[in-house]
């Protein structure tokens, strides 16, 4: 009785130690550079913020443009995103994701409320965003069909496709922006791509 109890106790302690050791290891595995950057962003270090701006301004502008269609609106929204991020820097949390996901989340909210008082929520994708006057190229018929099919997707699916494949966010970043789970994003992207495939095949 006592021998078996001692063995069980030792095994339990061993498991507990392994759990504690794994728990202690976890912070070491976190990207230290990313964590340090988040801390500096939280402290509103101007240099770190300037670097973040230079790195992400084009991506945020393109995201705003894809949602709103007009370059003037995209510029306003991009400016508002960085202003709101700077003001709310103390709310930034380290979830092991780059600050880009946080900026996209702010951008999504601002685009969603843009001119909401006067108009309905804008569509996830605005076709005019893909006109590129400087290149004279325009969209190929296939891409035009695809963009139109994207517009017909429901909002949740269109957002996943836009963030994942047009703006190149990872699964985790997309889940963070949409405030959902990674599994949810996986399922939604599969359904969205299947729906697009079906529309294009018609």
């Amino acid at each position: 009785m006592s021998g078996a109890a001692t063995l069980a106790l030792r095994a339990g302690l061993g498991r507990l130690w392994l759990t504690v050791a794994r728990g202690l290891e976890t912070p070491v595995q976190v990207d230290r550079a990313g964590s340090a950057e988040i801390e500096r962003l939280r402290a509103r270090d101007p240099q770190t913020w300037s670097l973040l701006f230079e790195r992400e301004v084009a991506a945020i502008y393109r995201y705003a443009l894809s949602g709103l269609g007009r370059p003037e609106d995209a510029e306003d929204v991009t400016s508002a995103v960085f202003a709101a991020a700077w003001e709310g820097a103390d709310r930034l949390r380290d979830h092991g994701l780059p600050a880009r996901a946080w900026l996209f989340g702010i951008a999504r909210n601002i685009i969603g409320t843009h001119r909401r008082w006067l108009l309905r929520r804008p569509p996830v994708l605005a076709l005019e965003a893909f006109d590129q006057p400087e290149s004279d190229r325009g969209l190929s018929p296939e891409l035009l069909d695809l963009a139109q099919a994207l517009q017909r997707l429901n909002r949740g699916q269109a957002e996943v496709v836009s963030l994942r494949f047009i703006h190149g966010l990872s699964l985790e970043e997309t889940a963070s922006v949409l405030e959902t789970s990674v599994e949810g994003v996986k399922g939604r992207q599969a359904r969205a791509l299947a729906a697009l495939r079906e529309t294009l095949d018609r």
Partner: protein
Amino acid sequence: MSTQHELPERLQTALEGVEYDVADREVVRLVSVAALTRELAPAAPDRETTQRLREQFKVRMGTAVPPRWLRWLGAWAGSGPAPRPLVERLAAGVLLIGIAGGGAGTAAGASPLELASGAVRLIESAVTNLDPRGSAGGGQTPTESPTPTTTATPVPATPSPSPGATTTATATATEDHDDDDDDDHDKKDDDHSDDDSRGRSDNSGRGNSREEEPDDNPSDDEDRVR
């Protein structure tokens, strides 16, 4: 059935380029759609736009950040990147007004106990008036009416050394009765005020639901974590 459940996983693996089974036609078709979608690229900002944005951000970094309570107030008023729903903002407003009212009452000399008892009286009154049988007052009258009778009855039986005692007793009984009348009046007044407040809250409730309706979009949140 199981392949349907595995499709998101297989697709994700293929998208990551870790494994790619060419025989899996369904996944191959979806990967090709994803690849096509990647070609949809909105225009990047031109040099002038980027410069303008940079200047604006530098100016923003140079100005002081408003204090947190002011930002909270702004968010409550509906500004900011993520405005809260109207219901949340109304609830926060009621709470703030309640706290401010409590503070004002305390400053005016009302103790917290009095404030609490006032709140309890208000709730009791509201519950009574919401009860359709209680609003007629039929249930309250018999309970209250015997009180002056029992108070008044023993007084004449008490040996009174002076004739003034009877007057006092009668006066007391009369006062009690008057008080009851006042209570009744108060009760009626309360009834009216409660009706008014109920009417107001109903209207505001309808207003809320009207304003919240356009925001509801169940299809948006099909995969949202609950």
